């Protein structure tokens, strides 16, 4: 699809080209990166709520010893789906929504390099989510944990003799939802990663050299590379899994000579880069927010950029730290212990440079700033527990306990999600034209901060005191009850906080009670604040010429006498006038085809649930739909002819 370019000749596409730029239906055909970004956000946030509700059920079940709110079988599905949902359908697409919306704006471009591919990514991601959750109606959700170790996930299953209801039959079906669902999601990520890489490298505004790019863009670039290289790994692993469960191959089946450890290698080879895929966008956001509200440039820009790149590379050499207890032997364990520990160095560089950024500044404690500082503080805790995991002999005690659960929620929630919330408050004015309410925002932050620590703090202790993870219940007598009940209370505080956030969005944006933002509500530093809020379809009437890092700041302020910095008289920044200037700019037309092409994928997935002719027919139908979508797409010109105003 990337290669067969549309002809320049005068031709119409096969069907009437969708033209709507507004209204309900426009969302289905849009290829505007901003609208796609909003689609990503809404969908991902919905999945976050779903994953959160699953978490609440987990917490209720574990609130006391020996509770039986849900059956073990259901519990296993819930925690598996909680992990999968949060990682693949909440956090990754939330980052994607930021990339989508902001990349072009922050590098001074009018859109991403491949707008239709972008829409395709979104629809494929949505299709993956729908496919995975369709298991609710079609035989059950995956129940092998998010890393789905073989042979529990393949030939053996949780109930090999099938004494508990019909679980043995359903097992293969659940695993089809896992393997195909993740693969479809992987296609979406792969497509966006290619798109973002090309956009960042190739679509920058004049003067926006690589070393002038905002750190957020750098982190988006590193993240995209990680996705580009990590997705095929999990893709192959999932294919092998699928062949094992559906077609009797022997990749991970020890009974026929396969090696279950290979699955673990493949999963974590993907899995560890994946966790940096989740955190680096948040690191990028923080690197934008802190300078603005400290009124200082980023401390050590170059170090921040290169430490991000270093983390990206080193992240490929640590995967076996998830497998220390598997028994890879002392040599492998030592090597991976070393690489794991030393990844703390570039991460520390980031933390310290952020400290350097706020040091000596004038800090304004707006909600985005609170969340950004929250990330720095909370991620450090999670990072430090990560380093303790790396101490292999001690890891033998920690692994698969709640201590690990504490670690990864500190980095995922206290790190990635805090960063994303900072970004939501920070860029909401740009996206919606209105600031989110500060009072509600601060309530959200503090509830979240407290609830988060109350939920996940005690997990450190209860884990070290012997509570394994992934247990649907536990007995009295281990001394775990008190911690668990506290954690459950904390989870509900987080839920309350999340509700406050949703109310805030409702109140400020939909009820239009939020303060009107104007172009540059925060006195910010980067070029996305030069255009109107929300930006016009074409982003910039006149693409900005970039002469410096923090371009906008330099347009607003110049060094004065001595150590002073003074404001440039008004007019220096390009304010207003976008609409009139830009009226002549024509953006590529909307298209049905990305949606059509995406539609075929889940149909092919569902076919695997059937067998024989039905399977072949469904496969063919799905493939035809996708193929038709792709053909229509390649034949369709970027612009409909004759209407080129």
């Amino acid at each position: 699809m990337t290669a067969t370019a549309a002809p320049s000749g005068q031709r119409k596409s096969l069907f009437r080209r969708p033209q709507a730029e507004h209204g309900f239906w426009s969302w289905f055909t849009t290829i505007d990166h901003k609208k796609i970004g909003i689609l990503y956000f809404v969908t991902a946030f919905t999945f976050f709520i779903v994953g959160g509700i699953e978490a609440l059920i987990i917490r209720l079940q574990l609130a006391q010893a020996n509770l039986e709110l849900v059956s073990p079988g259901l519990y296993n599905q819930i925690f598996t789906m909680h992990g999968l949902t949060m990682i693949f359908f909440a956090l990754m697409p939330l980052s994607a929504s930021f990339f989508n919306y902001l990349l072009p704006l922050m590098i001074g471009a009018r859109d991403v390099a491949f707008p239709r591919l972008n829409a395709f990514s979104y629809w494929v991601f949505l299709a993956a989510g729908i496919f995975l959750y369709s298991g609710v109606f079609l035989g059950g959700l995956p129940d092998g944990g998010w890393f789905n170790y073989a042979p529990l996930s393949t030939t053996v299953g949780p109930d090999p003799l099938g004494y508990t209801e019909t679980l043995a039959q359903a097992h293969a079906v659940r695993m089809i939802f896992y393997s195909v669902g993740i693969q479809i999601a992987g296609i979406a990520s792969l497509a966006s990663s290619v798109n973002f890489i090309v956009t960042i490298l190739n679509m920058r505004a004049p003067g926006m050299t690589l070393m002038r790019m905002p750190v957020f863009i750098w982190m988006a670039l590193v993240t995209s590379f990680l996705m580009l290289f990590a997705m095929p790994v999990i893709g192959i692993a999932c294919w092998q899994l699928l062949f094992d469960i559906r077609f009797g191959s022997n990749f991970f089946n020890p009974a026929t000579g396969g090696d279950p450890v290979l699955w673990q290698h493949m999963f974590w080879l993907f899995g560890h880069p994946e966790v940096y895929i989740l955190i680096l966008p948040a690191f990028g956001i923080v690197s934008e927010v802190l300078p603005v509200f400290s009124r200082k440039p980023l401390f050590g820009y170059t170090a921040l950029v290169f430490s991000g790149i270093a983390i990206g590379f080193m992240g490929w050499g640590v995967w076996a730290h998830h497998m220390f207890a598997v028994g890879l032997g002392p040599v492998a364990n030592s090597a991976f212990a070393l690489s794991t520990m030393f990844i703390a160095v570039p991460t520390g560089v980031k933390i310290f440079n952020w400290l350097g950024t706020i040091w000596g500044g004038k800090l304004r404690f707006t909600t985005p700033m609170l969340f950004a500082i929250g990330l720095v503080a909370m991620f450090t805790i999670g990072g430090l527990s990560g380093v303790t995991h790396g101490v292999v002999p001690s890891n033998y005690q920690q692994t698969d306990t709640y201590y690990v659960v504490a670690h990864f929620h500190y980095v995922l929630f206290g790190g990635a999600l805090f960063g994303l919330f900072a970004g939501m408050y920070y860029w909401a004015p740009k996206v919606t034209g209105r600031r989110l309410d500060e009072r509600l925002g601060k309530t959200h932050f503090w509830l979240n901060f407290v609830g988060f620590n109350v939920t996940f703090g005690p997990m450190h202790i209860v884990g070290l005191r012997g509570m394994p993870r992934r247990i649907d219940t536990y007995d009295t007598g281990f001394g775990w009850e008190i911690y668990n009940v506290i954690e459950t209370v904390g989870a509900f505080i987080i839920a309350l906080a999340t509700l406050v956030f949703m109310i805030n969005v409702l109140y400020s944006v939909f009820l239009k009670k939020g303060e009107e933002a104007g172009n540059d509500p925060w006195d910010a530093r980067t070029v996305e604040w030069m255009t109107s809020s929300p930006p016009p379809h074409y982003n910039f009437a006149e693409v900005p010429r970039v002469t410096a890092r923090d371009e906008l700041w330099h347009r607003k302020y110049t060094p004065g006498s001595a150590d002073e910095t003074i404001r440039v008289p008004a007019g220096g920044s390009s304010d207003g006038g976008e609409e009139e200037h830009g009226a002549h700019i024509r953006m590529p037309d909307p298209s049905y085809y990305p949606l059509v092409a995406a539609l075929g994928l889940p149909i092919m997935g569902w076919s695997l649930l059937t067998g024989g002719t039905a399977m072949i027919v469904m496969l063919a139908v799905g493939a035809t739909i996708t193929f038709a979508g792709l053909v229509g797409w390649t034949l369709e010109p970027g612009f409909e002819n004759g209407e080129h105003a």
Partner: protein
Amino acid sequence: MRPQGSHREQRRLRRSWFGWVIVAGLSLSACAQDYPQSALDPAGPIARQQDNLWNLVFVIAIVVFVLVQGAIIYALFRFRERKDDDGQIPKQVAGNTKLEILWTAIPALILVGVAIPTVQTIFELAGRPDGDPLEVRVVGKQYFWEFEYTGDEGQGVITATELHIPTDRPVYLTMESRSAVVTDTGAGAEGEARNGVIHSFWVPRLAGKQDVVAGHVRELTIQADEPGRYPGACAEFCGLSHARMRFYVEAQEPAEFEDWLADQAEPAVADFDTELAAEGERLVSSDTIGQQCIACHAIDGYDAEGDQVANQRIGPNLTHFASRETFAGGFLALNEENVQAWLDNPQALKPGAQMPRLGLTPDQIDAITAYLLSLE
């Protein structure tokens, strides 16, 4: 679950200054709690070695934590925009190479300090221990642990869920995993267990985890200083009853242990005090019900096909069933009521248990229970 464990833990914690951090900051209940499965309370040299490293890295983590959080909090107060702000833009500092090199180098040095003992300990803990370890083969099955005392000393004793070991002597475990695999590719004879899912053997107070992976033989050494009952758990998610796959290590004085082992090596008793138990024995040795039990369970003296080694069966060895305190993965106390309920419907007690509901009549259940409870 003796309280002495936690006292020792607290005493040990108080000895070190950072212990206060845990006691004050982390331990949220004031009264002496009971943590029999705590990894912070080692009861043998292996666990202690691991704990020593934890203490080292924990102190470092706390120090870094305090420094970073301290710096953040200081900066938040010191550099906040004040009410009476003069509107001046703060000094625009874009970096400081010296500082940046410093905070790259210092963490790296600290980590070298952690890495050296880490690697040392990894190699020390690997492999067969020196001296004359007791050898036990451990088999993880869905959802219980089976233990076979191998070698001359072990006399072929097989038991489940409760691992007896002598104190002050390393116990070298070789571990594998088996499940009841009934697919056309995986199965052996009916009732035979092979190539199971991954489990993880973990007795926190004696040693860290070792995963047990089908197709591989894994090894682990545990050792206890003092007699006691140390709870353990399967720590790798293994299916429906992963939460109910627990076990105990029963450390005994060496002499006591020898006695226990000798008892276990005897075949099951054949004379019963009660008529009911004798009736149970008839049922279990019968061709109808009995064949079923024996297909999955070994009871010395009643071998069905004869060629299956006991630990290749799906179910636990029942020869000395009644000598255990718990059964079915250690979460059921061994008493009449529980055994009866188990025989009636295993899944009701333990979802996913690989023992079928056999449709026994209440009378049969009573009899078999009486028999099983006589198997001391």
